[in-house]
């Protein structure tokens, strides 16, 4: 055993000396396991965008980006290993793409002084920058999503849903439980009935949940799923002939992988999103030219233009813009994680900026401030068109119910601050 330990020690010590980075960005991806179908396109998009910046512009502000990938398999233990093995050498930002790993990293990254960007996932109350100095979840979070779904249902029913029933099918984890409190609050306000149906990890077995839906006939079903759970749920909904236009998934339940398996009858399924879809943007020409044609595409290169690829690219774009902002603020090109945090906190995404990058009208405009790390909570609804084989936006961006959400964010973040003796910032 000692021998084995020693061998492990030497081998890992040899391996743990990475090359000095210019701008080190870590991609904690998952290309294996039950969530791989969703992890792969996101990671491809995230990496391809940085590759594009390196190839086309020579990095950001003249500094090349050193992208380090680490496989987590959506597993928190591996996530910790990944974080510890990559956090050295001034890693600028982490995008764990897992709510479980995010919960783990919030205290660790805060202690190490490395910013976390949990785009549309993670701990919702991290929106309160007064408490969570190092965590950002712009442009939208789960509670925004829950409110978006309810608002959409309200709009469809001329503002009165007091006689409706809404069922929430959720992944039985911190991720899936996030929207419950919001939906309960909104139910008090709008008077609908809420029923909760938990699906255990990884979500391949949902017969009983859908049997209940078939029996209770809720008017709407909202889903908080991820990975294989999405495909199974949509297939089950098709099987019980649930009207697909009344089935709304969170943005993590709305990619092509999730609906294609169910075939034609998945047509009409709705999913929320906080950015635009499709590949009809100038930046894709550049990706084709500098990344794909040069043979540098991440993964198999077959995900370009899919919903989650776009989301990964959007995440990378926001990170790159934050780097630029940080470089401007501090007047240096090689920034530290601390400076990156300043860049993220002063990030401003405007239409002109997005158009200049080659992503006109791709996402909502938003501004990050010291108090608000979560953006303005704008989102839209997309719908699956099975014939065309793509999701399309069917609404404009609209804001979530800030009146209710701000109170919830305040309550939850203050509880965290008290538990952990955190002094409020921004005053």
């Amino acid at each position, binding site marked *: *055993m000692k021998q*084995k330990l020693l061998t*492990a020690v030497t081998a890992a010590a040899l391996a743990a000396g990475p090359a000095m980075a210019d701008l080190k960005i870590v991609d904690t991806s998952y290309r294996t396991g039950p969530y791989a179908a969703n992890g792969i396109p996101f990671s491809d998009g995230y990496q391809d965008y940085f590759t594009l910046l390196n190839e086309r512009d020579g990095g950001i502000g003249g500094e090349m980006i050193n992208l380090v990938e680490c496989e987590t398999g959506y597993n928190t233990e591996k996530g*910790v*290993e990944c974080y510890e093995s990559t956090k050295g050498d001034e890693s600028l930002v982490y995008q764990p793409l897992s709510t479980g790993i995010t*919960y783990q990293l919030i*205290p660790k990254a805060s202690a190490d002084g490395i910013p976390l960007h949990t785009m549309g996932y993670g*701990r919702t109350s991290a929106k309160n920058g007064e408490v969570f100095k190092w965590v950002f979840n712009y442009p939208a979070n789960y509670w925004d999503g829950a409110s978006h779904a309810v608002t959409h249902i309200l709009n469809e029913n001329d503002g009165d849903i007091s006689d409706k029933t809404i069922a929430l099918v959720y992944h039985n*984890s911190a991720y899936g439980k996030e929207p419950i409190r919001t939906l309960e609050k909104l139910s008090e306000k709008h008077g609908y009935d809420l029923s909760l149906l938990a699906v255990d990890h990884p979500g391949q077995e949902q017969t009983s949940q859908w049997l209940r839906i078939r029996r209770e006939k809720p008017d709407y079903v909202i889903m908080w799923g991820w990975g294989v759970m999405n495909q199974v749920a949509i297939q089950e909904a098709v099987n019980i002939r649930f009207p697909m236009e009344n089935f709304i998934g969170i943005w993590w339940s709305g990619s092509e992988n999730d609906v294609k398996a169910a075939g034609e009858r998945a047509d009409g399924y709705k999913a929320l999103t906080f950015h635009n879809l499709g590949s009809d943007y100038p930046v894709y020409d550049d990706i084709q030219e500098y990344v794909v044609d040069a043979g540098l595409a991440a993964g198999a290169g077959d995900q370009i233009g899919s919903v989650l690829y776009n989301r990964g690219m959007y995440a990378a774009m926001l990170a790159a813009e934050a780097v630029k902002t940080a470089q401007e603020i501090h007047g240096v090109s090689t920034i530290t994680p601390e400076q990156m945090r300043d860049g993220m906190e002063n990030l401003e995404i405007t239409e002109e900026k997005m158009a200049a990058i080659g992503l006109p009208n791709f996402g909502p405009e938003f501004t990050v401030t010291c108090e608000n790390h979560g953006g303005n909570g704008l989102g839209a609804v997309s719908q699956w068109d099975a014939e065309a084989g793509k999701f399309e936006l069917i609404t404009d961006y609209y804001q979530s119910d800030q009146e209710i959400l701000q109170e919830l964010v305040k309550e939850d973040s203050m509880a965290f601050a008290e538990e952990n003796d955190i002094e409020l910032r921004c005053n």
Partner: protein
Amino acid sequence: MFYREAGDFKTSYEADSQTFPIKFDRYRYYAVLLIGFAMVPFIINDYWVNAVFLPFLIYSIAAIGLNILVGYCGQVSLGTGGFMAVGAYACYKFMTGLDIWLMQDGEWVRYALPEINIFFSVILAGVVTAAVGVLFGLPSLRIKGFYLAVATLAAQFFLVWLFNKWSWTYNYSASGQISAPERTIMGVPVTGAETAPWAAYLFCLVFLTLSALIARNLTRGMAGRKWMAIRDMDIAAEIIGVNPLKAKLSAFAVSSFFVGISGALFFAVYLGAVEVGEAFGINKSFLVLFMVIIGGLGSIFGSFAGAAFLVLLPVLLKNTLVGGLGWPTDLAAHLEFIIVGGLIVTFLVAEPHGLAQLWRVAKEKLRLWPFPH
């Protein structure tokens, strides 16, 4: 030549029946303790602690616990993940101040114990888990083998369900996660984000050393002999006067105690925040069972060896393939499954009694060396 009894005179029964009767063995053991306690803490960093040492130490405790039940007493259990969860949640409740709700004048009133020091929280977590283990060990009095495995599997699923459902266990947090706040021992934080690597390491090492000592001495005393009698043939054991009720339930209690401690450390010191389905699912039960089987049933050393094999090998492979050779991460992850799986099969074919047996054979060879006959 140097590894033998000759010349190592014992003048008392105590000396003769000590754990390491051979002088060389004994000094090696002292050396390991010395290195573990006095040298490693000075040279480790965050990565070593969080990726290598903590999982190794904590899984070793779990493997020791399960080995008592499966290896020594012959009761197959697939509930380890669930019992670890009991340890984790019990520890969480004790370290944050156990709250009790009593009905008074038609209203629920909250009473709370003061927060208990983390060291004692972990031990109390072990005690609670022992009680739960005894409860789920009751079927073992009537059923055996695979059927018992299925019964303990029920414990696994029930406990995970319980900790998802019963919001009191996670202090009513919205996400259902439990996260360990900072707790200190004599002013040194051992849980929370500010924990120094050496503090977390030493804290777990102390528990591992104590667990191994207790387990070792239990298994070679009367309790252990009773367990082994039950394992080898329960009817014969009963005839020679071993009470199967006491023997089996005590094995469940002791085993669950250690498993509970490992679960508490796993949550509080290693991960810091867990959700029950992900951290303590059925995979965990199998992982610990594999550690015990690969390490060697009925051997304390085997528990260490099995934990080391299944914790360190994936990390080592990952660092070699991705860090050393620069392979794509997904390819490396898949290859890791193949290699670890292949090695498990190879090991079990070559040595069904596990790594501990290899070590025993090596010791036997050393004794004869250099004159094998």
